Each structure stands twice: as structure tokens, then as C-alpha cells.
């Protein structure tokens, strides 16, 4: 195995003092998926732009497919596909025209470009919409067209910048299926996302970035173990009932339950069956909870545990 993407100490400063990248290093093995996770403005897109040659770094080095992104940009460009948040399709062109244009710019003949366009439209379920201007497409269709445009020459390395941001759940699943299919066929993928769930589902390795720096990396499981497990919140009618429940779990549960007023928190480290065990214990004691919430660790939990502060995306929502 060798690295399809490698970056060492990338620095990019915008203006006089905005450090978009402050020494980012990462490495993606061939045929694997790297999830670049972080809030808005963390440096995810800037990293992708440097790696796809659309932005020259101030410091550091990066190689894609063994080509230097600064010294051999055209070699890099010929072997990558880019789709997502900021690389768009032309709204005025139809789906077919968009894909044909990209094919021709990859130096395919008009005929070959047309054929590849038709094949991709078919593959992504866009044949019926092929002759409509892409501005009439739904969000999910546009994203599929966008990804199709990145696959015109079947590049060995694919960059997806927030591929599912703003998509409804079924379109998101469709995009995930596309990515999984590509990886199964040997494509190396670097994707950026704000969703831990997405990184968890698709990525072999996750790199967490914040303020232009890598603040954590590892597999999804490794990151989650740093966060602690899923938490089961059980609410009871009063403190008395909660205290009784606490005493039941105090002896029998793997970890120590936490009680706050009429609320009891249990760590869940063995999946849903453990929730059933907890409920069975309560049932045997004749206590029924009035509320029950199972919390997965979120990106915000990652940030809270690593940086001690909330993500800016969350703060914006809170405003």
C-alpha cells in the first residue's frame, strides 16, 4: 500500500493575518477514504483547494498520485476528480452538455465525450433529465451531476467537498451509496464533512481540523472511544424514583451511573441490547421511566472534548 494523497505542513495565509491552514499534514492510503471533519471555516475547503491545485500553498508540500501539486499541477489535474460544495456545474447547460464539456476539457473527442456523458447520466439515473438545463434539477440531482462531472475520466483519486451538505436524507443515502461503490472499485477518496455520522459511515480514517490545524486523527472507533460511549438518559417521575433506579444500576452496571435530580445517565458501550438490559432491570424492580433519550456523540461532542469549546456552526444555530 502506498499513499495516494500526502500533505506535509501546509500553510495558507489569506490577507495579512487570516491563517486558513496552519501546518496541516495528512496521508491517504490508496483505495481508502479519508474524512476531513471540522466546522465551517476550519480549513477543510482550503485543504481540498490546495490538493486539487486550485490554490497554491504558502508553505508545505503535497503530492497526489505521486505528483507535486505545485510543480506538476496539470499531471495532478489529469488524475483527480473534484465535486461538492464549491466546484459547480453550469446552471445554463443541460446535464449532458455539462458532462460533455468536462470530457472535452479532459481532451476527449466530442464523440467520446458525448458517449461518456450518456453512460454517466445513465449510471446516475439522470437520463430522463439529460436534456434539461441543470438549474431545473433538484438538490440531489445536481449533486449527482456534480459527482458525475468529477468522474468523467474515472480518476483514481476523488475529492468530495461536503458532498451531502444541504441534501435531504434520501439524496444523502444515494450519494453515500455512490461513494461506497467507487471505493469498492478502488478509488481513493478524500471527503470533507461537518457530520460525524457521514465520516463514521464512509471514512476509514478521520482527520479533525479546527482553525487550520489538525487537532485529532484516527478511525471513527478511536475517535469515539476518546469521547466516551453513547449515553442513555432516563427520566423518572421524581427524585425518589431516580434514586431507586440509581441504586439498582450502581451494583449491576459496568460503569457508575450519574444521577442529576430525577435524571439518570447510563453509559452504553455494547449497543442497543444493553438498553434492553437496562429496561429489564427497571421492569423487574417495578419502576418505569417517563422519558428516555439515547445520545450519540456528535461532532460538537468531539469538539467539546478536544478543544473544550463548541463548534462555530453550533453557535450560529444558537444565535
Amino acid at each position, binding site marked *: 500500500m502506498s499513499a495516494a494523497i500526502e500533505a506535509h505542513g501546509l500553510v495558507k495565509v489569506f490577507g495579512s493575518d487570516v491563517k486558513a491552514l496552519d501546518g496541516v499534514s495528512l496521508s491517504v492510503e490508496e483505495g481508502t477514504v479519508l474524512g476531513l471533519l471540522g466546522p465551517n471555516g476550519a480549513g477543510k475547503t482550503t485543504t481540498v483547494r490546495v490538493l486539487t491545485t486550485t490554490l497554491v500553498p504558502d508553505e508545505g508540500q503535497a503530492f497526489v498520485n505521486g505528483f507535486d501539486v505545485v510543480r506538476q499541477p496539470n499531471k495532478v489535474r489529469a488524475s483527480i476528480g473534484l465535486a461538492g460544495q*464549491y*466546484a*459547480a*456545474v*453550469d*446552471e445554463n447547460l443541460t446535464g449532458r452538455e455539462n458532462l460533455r464539456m468536462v470530457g472535452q476539457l479532459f*481532451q476527449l473527442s466530442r464523440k467520446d465525450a458525448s458517449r461518456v456523458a450518456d453512460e454517466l447520466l445513465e449510471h446516475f439515473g439522470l437520463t430522463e433529465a439529460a436534456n434539461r438545463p441543470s438549474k431545473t434539477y433538484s438538490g440531489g440531482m445536481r449533486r449527482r451531476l456534480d459527482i458525475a462531472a468529477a468522474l468523467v475520466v474515472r480518476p483514481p483519486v476523488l475529492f468530495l467537498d461536503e458532498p451531502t451538505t444541504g441534501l435531504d436524507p434520501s439524496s444523502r443515502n444515494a450519494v453515500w451509496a455512490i461513494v461506497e461503490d467507487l471505493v469498492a472499485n478502488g478509488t481513493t477518496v478524500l471527503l470533507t464533512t461537518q457530520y460525524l455520522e457521514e465520516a463514521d459511515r464512509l471514512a476509514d480514517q478521520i482527520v479533525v481540523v479546527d482553525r487550520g490545524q489538525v487537532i485529532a486523527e484516527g478511525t471513527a472507533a478511536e475517535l469515539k472511544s476518546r469521547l466516551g460511549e453513547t449515553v442513555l438518559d432516563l427520566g423518572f417521575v421524581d427524585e425518589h424514583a431516580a434514586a431507586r433506579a440509581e441504586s439498582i444500576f450502581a451494583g449491576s452496571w459496568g460503569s457508575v451511573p450519574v444521577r442529576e435530580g430525577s435524571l439518570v445517565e447510563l453509559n452504553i458501550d455494547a449497543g442497543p441490547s444493553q438498553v434492553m438490559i437496562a429496561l429489564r432491570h427497571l421492569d423487574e424492580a417495578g419502576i418505569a421511566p417517563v422519558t428516555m433519550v439515547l445520545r450519540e456523540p456528535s461532532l460538537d461532542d468531539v469538539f467539546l472534548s478536544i478543544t473544550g469549546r463548541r463548534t462555530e456552526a453550533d453557535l450560529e444555530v444558537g444565535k
Partner: protein
Amino acid sequence: MTASVLPGRAVALKRSRLRASIGDSIVVTERNLIGYLRIPEQLFFSSVQPIMFVLLFRYVFGGAISPPGMSYVDYLIPGILVQTVLFGSVSTSVGLAEDLQKGLVDRFRSLPMARSAVLAGRTSADSIRNVFVILLVIGVGYLVGFRVGTNFAGFLAAFALLLFFAYAVSWGFSCIGLSAPNSETAQLMAFPILFPLTFASSAFVPTETMPSWLRWFADHQPVGVVVNATRALLEGGPTARWVIPAVIWSLALLFVFAPLAVWRYRKTA
């Protein structure tokens, strides 16, 4: 979605640099022309504007202004032609700013294509559009009394000069489009440049009645010179005196702004 094995093919870049850059420019030109045709409203209103100018100036000012040696409509049409191609080049900057804003330029930058093709494709598409606009203005002019006073060669030379001047100017507007924060601003940024150059010239009125400093400016600045050259080619008069500086101005604009635009394009984040 159907089969799980993707179509597509690996690519070998084999064309020479020059052929690649011409080929890429043609692809981008075609893309921009399709864009114009897909927005019929834009096409309609950008045609209405020059027609409106011809009719308004012909009938509103026509009676009040009598230029020496020719009818006002013959005097006016060369001015309107220059004004129309000049105002049309605003769309070069608006189009580029829009491509930047919407992320199309980033798509292009990530492709193994000639760096100059995005700009060359934009300016070429605008030149092709200018061919239609020039024919439209001359056609409407004919309906309201305009006649070419020289000959077919003069007409062709005027046509070529207008296209070349507009092409050079559109590289200047490319620089504006690449510097503007968004397409609305790109449009606004154009007018403080266009209005003084167009109105402080012989486009609509003879410069004789202007204050001497303004007259000097009007007779030497590029728009004034190109208007006079176009008028000389279409209606007669001292041709070389105006055509030579008009060509020099156009070449100068092209040699300054084309490299500047390409440099900005490479640099723009």
C-alpha cells in the same frame, strides 16, 4: 443507478500546448454561447437597449443637432455602434464574476485545461455576440434613414475595427470581473468607466462645442478615436488620421489587459 462498474476512461494528455489552448477555448466559447441562448430574457433586453438608443437619439436629438457635412442619423449610428459594443463588454466582467461566485472557475481550475481558455472563451463568445449586435444596430439604423456613405470595403473595415476594439476592451472588463466581489458589483464598477468615455466623445454630438480641455480629451481618448475612425470608414472623411490611432489604442488595451487578466486569473483565490 444501474451497474456498479463505472464507465469513463483514464486520460492521456497528448495535445500540444497551443492546440490544447485553442481547443479548450472553443469548448468554453461554445459553453458561453449556449448560456446566452438559454436566457432569452437577457438576449431580448440586450437587443432592446441598442434599438432604443438608436430610436431615442435619432428622433430626440436628431432635430436639434446638425453635424457638419452629414445628416444626424449618419453621424449617430457609428457612435451607437461603438457605444453598444462597449456597453456589451460589461457582460464579460459580469459573466466572469458570476462564474467565480458560483464555483465554475474552481471546476475549470481543477481540470487539466489551458489556464487562458476560461478568459479566451469568454471574450470570444462576447465577440461573436457582437457580430449580431452590430448587424442589428445597422439594420435598425437603415430603417430610420442611415446609409453607408463609403463602400463595402469601408463597411467591412469598420466592422472589423469594432470587433477588434470590443475584443480588446473585454479583456479590460475581464480584469474588473476577476477583481469584483460579486456579479452585481462587477456591473456597477463598469459604469463610472463607460459613461465618461462614451459621452465625453463624439459618439452622439460633435465635440466642437465642448470646453477646450474636454474637447481635447474627447478627441484623444480611445472611445472618441474609435468613434471617429468608424465614422470615417462608414461615411467618409480623414480615414487614416483616425483609424491608425484607433488600431494603436486597441492594440495597447489588448497588450496591457490580456496579460493582466491572465495574471489575475492565476492569482485569484
